């Protein structure tokens, strides 16, 4: 039930991304998505350089603000650039053992649905594996695959498909 509410609110929050909404109260649900301009969440008390004080999760200039990594068709290979993003998250998680994330694996619409569920899971597990290697505890990461069921782009072309072949890093913030 909690996960469901969480997912729903993540979906809702993804709808308003880019809207530069007025400062909103970070709660366990909306903290999942980085939103430039949202108020600093002081709960973790961490600070980064560069003049941003507060949790680096909320620093728009931190690599932690990047929460999606992308894949080639029928591939679960993480690109070198995305490895740096994953590495930044892994470092943060290793330093904050009470923080948990969900890695959501997704695919584009092409091919068979159940194969895509398995492919989405393999993508999420590829990201999970990199994080575990950096000392993140197993219990901090939950993997869920939605296959092709939750596209972010609805076109039937490579531009949309590229955006849909992804793993989302969702902070549950508890």
């Amino acid at each position, binding site marked *: 039930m909690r996960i469901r509410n969480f997912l729903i609110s993540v979906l809702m929050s993804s709808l308003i991304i880019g809207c530069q909404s007025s400062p909103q109260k970070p709660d366990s649900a909306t903290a999942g998505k980085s939103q430039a301009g949202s108020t600093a969440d002081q709960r973790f008390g961490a600070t980064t350089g560069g003049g941003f004080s507060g949790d680096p999760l909320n620093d728009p200039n931190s690599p932690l603000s990047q929460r999606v990594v992308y894949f080639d068709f029928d591939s679960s290979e993480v690109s070198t650039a995305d490895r740096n993003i994953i590495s930044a998250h892994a470092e943060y998680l290793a330093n904050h053992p009470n923080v948990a994330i969900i890695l959501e694996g997704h695919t584009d*619409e092409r*091919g068979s*649905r*159940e*194969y895509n569920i398995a492919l989405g899971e*393999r993508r999420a597990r590829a990201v999970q594996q990199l994080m575990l290697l950096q000392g993140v505890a197993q219990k901090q990461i939950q993997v869920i695959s939605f*296959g092709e069921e939750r596209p972010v782009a609805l076109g*039937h072309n490579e531009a949309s498909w590229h955006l849909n072949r992804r793993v989302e890093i969702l902070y549950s913030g508890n």
Partner: protein
Amino acid sequence: MLRKLKLIIVLFLLIAAQTRAELTIDITQTVEGATPIAIAPFTWSGQQAAPENIAAIIAADLSRSGRFEPLPKADIQPLPQWGQPLEFPLWRARKIQYMVVGSLQRRGPDQYVVQFQLFDIKLGTQLTGYSITSQVSHLRKTAHQVSDLIYQTLTGERGAFDTHIAYVTVVTDRSGRKSYNLSIADADGFNEQIIYTSPQPILSPSWSPDGRQLAYVSYTRGRPELYIQSIQTRIAKRVSDFPGLNNAPAFSPDGKRLALTLSKDGNSEIYILDLQTHHLQRVTHNYAIDTEPAWMPDGRSLIFTSDRGGSPQLYRVDLDQSGRNNQPRRLTFEGNYNARAAISPKGTHVAMVNRNAKGFHIAVLDLQNHYLTVLTDNPLDESPSFSPNGQMIIYASESAGKGVLAEVSIDGRAHQRLRFQRGDVREPTWSPFMNSN
């Protein structure tokens, strides 16, 4: 060879009374060499309009099979009347080979009788004839039974018109909220009934061999879990909720076991769950993706999708009594994507999603000669399922940005789309023959 010419004939547009879902059936490709058959409008003597157009339902059924070409009403003049002798020389002169004449009579409050005769015009004889009692709510079913009798008489094969399909519909409301419906309907798409609804994804409906239950994947608790639901009582039971994937359910031919995909041991592997003892037997052992198991009709082997060779392909694995399995053998070699096997009822053919330069199509592999035939040419086809007589394949396609259901005969000659007016329709699966009627 697929014909280039595509005739779009809207056969009929009706509002299904029970659900008010509008449905059109487009014959997207007519068939050369289909047997012409005259189906005369059924005689009806009631005061009001006839409760169903029996002849139109039969004509639509026979047409969908691709084996018959029902003649337009204008070619059946003067209309033969039920109970009158048929003027064989007249119809013979018009090169009509077969004719169906029938009547619909009301015998009492909600009691009807459908009678028909099938004639061979050339021979001047009746081939078959029946009288079937029915009710208003069963008249479509009765018409499908007549279609089955005609089909069986003329082709020697059992008809599959009086059967059902299950599928998933996704409806988005005005506020953008999605609702996933698991539905069943008659094989022609009418009489839709929603048997399960969830705001979260529903996937992979699979019929039990007796046609009384559906297994499916539901994300209703936030992640994929497997349920088996009774169609009659609507009671659903959760049968698999291991960590990770609980996906791709497939009832064994004896209905006692469920093949499924789990990732509890590290990555997606195929298992067999005994539904009585809950004993779990692991079938595959490979770092690659293994999923989408389908049973051979003898229950002694599975065909599944694996990318162990670098791209998704179909493999076959024999199951032995001890639980130790032989090494899976690769079945498909054409193209870099062959997935989601559906096995024909007699185990002679395997339908699948096949990728070529133009996209993802439905293809069928003949297991005897290993010849692969691509049956469809839309860019995003998936989820093939055989009719219980093995003659047709229903599958999911895409048209004008919406998921639609489509059918193709296994020889690739007859094509049609079932277009539901509401929502995205996907993952059709054809029921078995419901009983031994």
